[in-house]
């Protein structure tokens, strides 16, 4: 009953959405809640964030990003628009593929930022790896700004993802 191509396609879409909510939810938590709240927290209470909450949140954040991109690529492959989306639907005259393609590229940039800029710098900033106080300061700034870049890109990325099925698929 469940073993149909359509059901598996739906199952990967469902997993893609679940992992995407985990990823972008935690990204927005960092940018809308944790970072603005840090200056208001007394110094003696700050380790609760930097030593306990932030490392756990970062774990689910980066693996949420990984799960989102893997399930997204599988979904695009199963749905038959992966190659068209990678070339942004250019020449195919299918608005849905252009929209999902642009969203995929934005998501891929964000995934790269998470794994290769934010996480290595957060490891220094949080003291997970050894770093001098100056290196920690630079690392925290780099990670924070890159996280802001991802917050900025999340708005057009979600526009592309949602409009692919709910606007461009209807209007062509």
């Amino acid at each position, binding site marked *: 009953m469940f073993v149909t191509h359509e059901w598996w396609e739906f199952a990967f879409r469902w997993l893609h959405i679940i992992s995407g909510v985990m990823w972008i939810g935690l990204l927005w938590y960092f940018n*809308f809640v944790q970072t603005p709240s840090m200056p208001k927290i007394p110094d003696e209470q700050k380790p609760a964030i930097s030593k306990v909450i932030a490392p756990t949140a970062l774990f689910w954040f980066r693996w949420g990003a990984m799960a989102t991109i893997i399930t997204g690529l599988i979904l695009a492959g199963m749905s038959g628009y992966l190659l068209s989306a990678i070339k942004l*639907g*250019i020449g195919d*005259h299918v608005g849905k593929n*252009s929209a999902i393609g*642009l969203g995929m590229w934005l998501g891929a940039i964000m995934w790269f930022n998470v794994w290769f800029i934010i996480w290595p710098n957060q490891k220094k900033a949080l003291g997970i790896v050894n770093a001098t106080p100056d290196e920690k300061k630079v690392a925290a700034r780099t990670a924070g700004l890159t996280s*802001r870049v991802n917050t900025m890109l999340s*708005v*057009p990325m979600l*526009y592309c993802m949602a409009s692919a099925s709910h606007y461009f698929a209807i209007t062509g």
Partner: protein
Amino acid sequence: MRDCATRSAASAIAETPLYLYDVIAYHNNYRKRLGMKNPLDSLGQTVLIGFILAAVAHLLISAFSA
């Protein structure tokens, strides 16, 4: 002739990131001289730029699929 054109194209592609870096560095220094903050330090401006980029994305999608 073709080798020369290929080398020029390859050189231009290789140097483009450097030009972009110069533009960004120049903009950053100019911004600092004027005492302007990085817009990404403001959450509101970050989200606003995101909405502008969404409008740009809509135009790009329409252009790509035309």
